[in-house]
């Protein structure tokens, strides 16, 4: 974990005071709603269908048990006893009162949590692999660089009023769990031939109504230059990004309109003119940040402890272990993913009681650390294998041991029309219905890895374009309809899904998804061929036929 020092603490407290003043000026009428809107958005406060929604940052997905307890407290004290984890390592509270927000922020600041730039047209929360620092085979811990970027992007004096929002994601593993190719800037940490740390820089990815996969703008930028290079990209974007139409204002449109080569030349020219600047990170600067990350005092433990051998006789435990437990870089330890997708539940929600109990489990079994992933699940990153059976029992009691990680019921969904003022259609009830249809774990296991993503409107907060199956809510003559795409993916081979045909009404969505899954089971050439690979091999036609033949 990164430990805030006095300076970090001072800054977030100063931000709380500033926001308190802004709320006060709004409540007294000194600020118009139009003026206040921009200011509250800079601090994660949206006006939704029923109330203000408050989005809190969980930078690069790391939380301490103390922080998680505080989030639980916020849910209980200021909201309705639960929070919603999002696809960008944030947590949202849906029922917050404006007048109480400054106090909620002050309580969060006490544990080093803030809501700076979780919305608005600025550089958003920097996200990373939720397995950062513990995944085997990782090039280097990407959290060091995530923290360097978090600091650099926080209250940036030049880039706090960009044409549109701007999202940066970092990965350091071959398998991309941070979805960097659908970000405005994606950074893939790797080493050059001399063994020096740097980044492949991708730019212009994003979903929404005009989805693009990010393109590589530079195959290697040395770590010491990453801030100046990112700043060069931002400066070109700030000046030339479109401001006449919010739907064309993201950097992806600028990159698309100029072409990646011309855009890259503009950035290179800006970068060249910046020259050797104060942004260049020398070795000691990087080490200064690195030194404030602490690593757990791992024990020397056996690869296969007796406790695990014994528990292997319990089929329910084994089913969970095979699904939710992943290898750790240290022998004798595991990474445990906690599904926030129980059958019939809204994806990504956790109650205050669950959060508190999980914080206790993190203290007992994971050196007090919790992670948040973009799939809207949580993880305990350092669990000794010998503790897995006990942990499983405890998680099961909390409803956090649903063995469906990466399976058909591990659905990513936006809040949709149940909460969101932008939505055209509901997302959560579709997800809930699908989890009931595929509630049988043996069936889900047999289907294998299959990501379903649901968005309630074209803004694509549920990342439907990159779901293996994507479901997009649209409105037709006042009724909810859903477009279905298949074959999308958000990993290192990211691509957009392909529409299979006309939109279907709300009541038919679950049937259509069942048809698609049944078609896949009949079409796959062997059980190991994943849904997304079958679609790649055969195209959408056979699926389309199956779905529309009887409709």
């Amino acid at each position, binding site marked *: 974990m990164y430990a805030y020092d006095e300076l970090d603490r001072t800054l977030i407290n100063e931000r709380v005071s500033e926001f308190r003043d802004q709320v006060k000026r709004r409540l007294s009428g000194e600020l118009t709603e139009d003026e206040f809107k921009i200011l509250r958005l800079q601090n994660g406060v949206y006006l939704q269908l029923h109330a203000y929604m408050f989005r809190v940052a969980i930078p690069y997905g790391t939380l301490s048990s103390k922080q998680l307890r505080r989030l639980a407290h916020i849910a209980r004290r200021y909201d309705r006893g639960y929070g919603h984890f999002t696809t960008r390592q944030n947590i949202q509270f849906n029922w917050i009162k404006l007048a109480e927000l400054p106090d909620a922020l002050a309580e969060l600041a006490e544990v080093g949590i803030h809501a700076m730039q979780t919305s608005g047209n600025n550089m958003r929360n920097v996200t990373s692999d939720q397995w950062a620092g513990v995944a085997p085979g990782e090039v280097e811990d990407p959290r060091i660089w995530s923290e360097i970027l978090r600091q650099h992007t926080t209250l940036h*004096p030049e880039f706090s009023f*960009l044409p549109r929002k701007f999202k940066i994601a970092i990965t350091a593993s071959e398998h991309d769990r941070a979805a960097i190719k659908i970000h405005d800037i994606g950074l893939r940490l790797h080493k050059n031939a001399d063994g020096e740390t740097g980044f492949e820089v991708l730019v212009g990815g994003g979903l929404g109504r005009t989805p693009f996969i990010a393109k590589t703008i530079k195959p290697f930028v040395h770590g010491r230059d990453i801030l100046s290079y990112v700043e060069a990209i931002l400066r070109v974007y700030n000046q030339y990004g479109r*401001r006449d139409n919010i739907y064309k204002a993201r950097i992806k449109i600028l990159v698309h309109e100029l072409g990646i080569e011309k855009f890259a030349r503009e950035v290179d020219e800006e970068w060249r003119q910046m020259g050797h600047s104060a942004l260049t990170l020398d070795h000691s600067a990087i080490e200064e940040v690195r030194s404030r990350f602490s690593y757990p005092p791992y024990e020397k433990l056996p690869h296969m402890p007796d406790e695990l051998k014994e528990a292997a006789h319990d089929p329910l435990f084994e089913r969970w272990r095979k699904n939710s437990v992943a290898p750790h870089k240290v022998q004798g330890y595991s990474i445990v993913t906690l599904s926030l997708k129980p059958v019939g539940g809204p994806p990504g929600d956790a109650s205050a009681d669950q959060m508190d109990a999980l914080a206790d489990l993190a203290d007992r079994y994971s050196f007090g650390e919790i992670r948040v992933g973009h799939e809207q699940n949580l993880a305990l990153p350092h669990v000794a294998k010998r503790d897995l059976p006990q942990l499983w029992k405890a998680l099961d009691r909390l409803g956090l041991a649903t063995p469906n990680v990466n399976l058909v019921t591990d659905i990513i969904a936006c809040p949709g029309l149940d909460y969101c003022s932008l939505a055209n259609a509901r997302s959560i009830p579709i997800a809930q219905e699908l989890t009931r249809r595929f509630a049988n774990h043996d069936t889900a296991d047999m289907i294998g890895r299959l990501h379903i993503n649901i968005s309630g409107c074209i803004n694509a907060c549920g990342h439907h374009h990159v779901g293996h199956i994507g479901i997009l809510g649209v409105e037709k003559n006042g009724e909810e309809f859903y477009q279905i795409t298949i074959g999308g993916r958000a990993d290192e081979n990211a691509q957009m899904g392909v529409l299979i045909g006309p939109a279907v009404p709300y009541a038919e969505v679950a049937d259509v998804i069942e048809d698609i899954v049944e078609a896949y089971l009949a079409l796959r050439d062997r059980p190991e061929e994943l849904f997304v690979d079958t679609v790649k091999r055969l195209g959408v036609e056979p699926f389309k036929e199956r779905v529309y033949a009887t409709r």
Partner: protein
Amino acid sequence: MPLVKNGRITTDLFVHVADGAELPGDGAVFIPAARFLEDPEPILKRAGKTGVIWPNNRAVDDLVPYLGRLAAVALVFPTFRDGRAYSQARLLRERHGYDGELRATGQVLRDQFVFMSRAGFDAFEVKKDADADAFAETMKRYSVFYQPTGDGRVTALNRRMQLRHSESAGQ
């Protein structure tokens, strides 16, 4: 609209000269960019100081040849959502070494003061009286800064490095 300069509300000595209006023989003037660029020499040779109002959608490169002879540059925030002038300000100060008055105009609220100051602005045409009155107080809102800019404020990283250096020197 109050003008804040050097941290205080002051009288604006500059007269804004519109496109078609006659240029006064002396006194400080602000001239729109297009009119200035059309024929800069007679303007610069006047008895009074020259300021140019530079739009936020034109590269400052065109203004660079004249910077040494300008007393003021006004950059524009058509709405406070539009942040292009922050980049222009930093380029003028940090790349082109401009050291005259750099004025923020348009929708200028107290919530931008710190950002603007960090980007190099030293004069502010503030939209609301209450915000102008609160200038000094607002500038004290922040004492920690993560990014290096040309404003001379010490960054958090530099403070940490200094601390580390003094700690190791004391051992």
